[in-house]
């Protein structure tokens, strides 16, 4: 059997899902012969490659760069998995949404006006990616094939879905595997 070309992507999230991925510990050794990790924060690849079989996408779509990346990975991947609550439902990343549009969020977060420091808001599009007015779950931007909730999803849950996908099975939707939080 050919090795599965696996990618993991980190959008607007805390990287906790990737930490949980690493928590699969020695099973990663078992996994290694079956996959090529072609793109990941854990690997040294600058460009999202073509022909990815499975992409685990952590994080919500919070800024222009996230949105661009989501579209690129969707175009170049066969199976896209929303990996963790931020990708699935926005989660903590999306807690800024009720605060208003991006500028209001930045104002509220940096308290510059009230602090009277005269400092500049970090909204320079030449330097940092521009925030979207609303943080979105991944599937609100591109079609998603499977959902892996959890904050972060426990290692066992990640292993279960990866095993299913490697075996070309439809991932189980058992309650203990899809609980939010």
């Amino acid at each position, binding site marked *: 059997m050919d090795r599965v070309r696996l990618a993991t992507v980190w959008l607007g999230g805390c990287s906790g899902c990737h930490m949980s991925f690493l928590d699969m510990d020695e099973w990663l050794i078992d996994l290694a012969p079956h996959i090529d990790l072609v793109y990941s924060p854990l690997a040294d690849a600058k460009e999202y490659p073509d022909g990815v079989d499975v992409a685990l996408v952590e994080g919500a779509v919070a800024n222009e760069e996230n949105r661009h990346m989501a579209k690129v990975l969707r*175009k170049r991947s066969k199976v896209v998995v929303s990996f963790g609550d931020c990708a699935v439902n926005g989660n903590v990343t999306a807690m800024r949404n009720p605060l208003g549009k991006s500028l209001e969020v930045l104002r509220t977060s940096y308290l510059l006006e009230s602090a009277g420091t005269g400092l500049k808001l970090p909204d320079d599009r030449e330097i940092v990616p521009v925030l979207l007015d609303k943080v979105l779950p991944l599937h609100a931007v*591109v*079609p998603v094939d499977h959902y892996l909730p959890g904050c972060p999803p426990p290692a066992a849950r990640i292993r279960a879905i990866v095993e299913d996908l490697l075996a070309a099975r439809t991932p189980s939707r058992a309650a203990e595997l899809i609980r939010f939080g």
Partner: protein
Amino acid sequence: MDHDELLRIADAERAKAKPNEIRCCTSSGCRASGSADVLKQLKASVAANGLNDTLTAVGVGCPGLCSAGPVVMSHPDGGMFGKVTAEQAKGIVAALSGGATDAQRIDPNQPFFRKQFRVVRATAGQIDPERIESYIAVGGYEGLYQALQKRPDEIVTDVTASGLRGRGGAGYPTGLKWATVEKMPPGQKYVICNGDEGDPGAFMDRSVMEDAPHQVLEGMAIAAYAVGANQGFIYVRAEYPLAIERLQAAITQATKAGLLGANIFQTPFEFKVEIRIGAGAFVCGEETALIASVQGLRGTPRPRPPYPAESGLWDRPTLINNVETFATIPAISRNGAAWFAAIGTDRSKGTKIFSLTGKVKNAGLVEVPMGTTLRAVVEELGGGTADGKAVKAVQTGGPSGGCIPASLLDTPIDYESLGKIGSIMGSGGMIVMDDTDRMPEVARFFMEFCADESCGKCVPCRVGTVQLHGLLTKLVERKATRHDLDTLVELCQLVRDTSLCGLGQSAPNPVLSTIRYFAAEYEALLQPEEFARPPRASVIPLSVV
């Protein structure tokens, strides 16, 4: 009050009448375009011309042709004037004795009037709604007297035999409802008149309450006697101040005359009526929410059963009918069930009032026998569109109803036929649309209304309508894809099938009916998908029923 006295009042009122009357509509529509001033000037002109012995100027209820208001009529010659100004009043009075007037004449024999069959609105435009004598003179309260000569169960049998069905929209057989309340063990029972008319574009009940408040009271009294109730409530929305004023005056007059209160027509029958004013929630037209509101609670519906007929106001058996339903009763009592049952179709008896609005030439109120086609109402009575454009669709039943395409205008108006083509009779709103009207926008308008008016109790209605409105907005802004359209239809089905009360259950009707008949308009707004999506395999059948 006994029957002789009733007849004496009628005789006296008729004897008092002058040979000629000049009648000015004083109901809400004409009043809004200045009819109060017109009436004042008419009265002044009659006096100034020394005509007080032969002519009176009186305020009357709505003759129906609201788009021509203020409307003035001369009696008995049948002259009719429209868009009358206060300045024209003098000329109209002069015209009665052969003078000239520049007031615009209306043909009283045009189909709008000729093709109507008036049962409920029989006296509208002819009597002064503010005087009980005026109502008694045309046979008012005779129906109540007749009813009191029978046993309550005989009246229920009559109403059942008449085939009358609820005019509030759902068309539940009135006799069956009455029978349920009547058969409940004796004890405190209530009668409620639902005057919370809230559909956009509907004003039938307003006109009945304004034009014939005594007729509503008489109908309620007959019902109360039939089911064994001694207390009635009329629930009127606060947006109808004139209806409230006239009903209140009518209650006072009827009580004073002994037609409400104790020992009515010298029988042991006792009946009192109070008005309850609604605070502007559409959902309070739903009977269980209305009952909660009358009790002073938050106006939210509760699940049925138990039906109000078994356990309603303060958990007592309660008969709740719509204004038009009650206003139909006196005529049935006077003329008999067979007379009424001879009007209309096999399963929808009698007449129905519609408020014709939108792009129609003759906007106003029409009362026609059930079974009249939509085409007759819209094209003959309504005169088609105001600017001669083709009629595109007719919306019936307001936010709970559907849009009927012009191709189906030959459908007879009855409960079953309208249901079959995806709309409802509803309370009687009829909005005419032409080809400048965009159906997805119409659907969005009604969904916005439902989302605003949802009481918030059950989840599918509270949140579903908001999501539906969002999807429709996305659609009309040309941002939606086929995927969104599929989601729209699925959500419509959810809201229809799972909502707690009629508001939610019927909220998707304007969307589903416009998708059914005007799918191309929706398709034309769709944008291509940026990414291919797998086909959706919905497990929701088009109807679970």
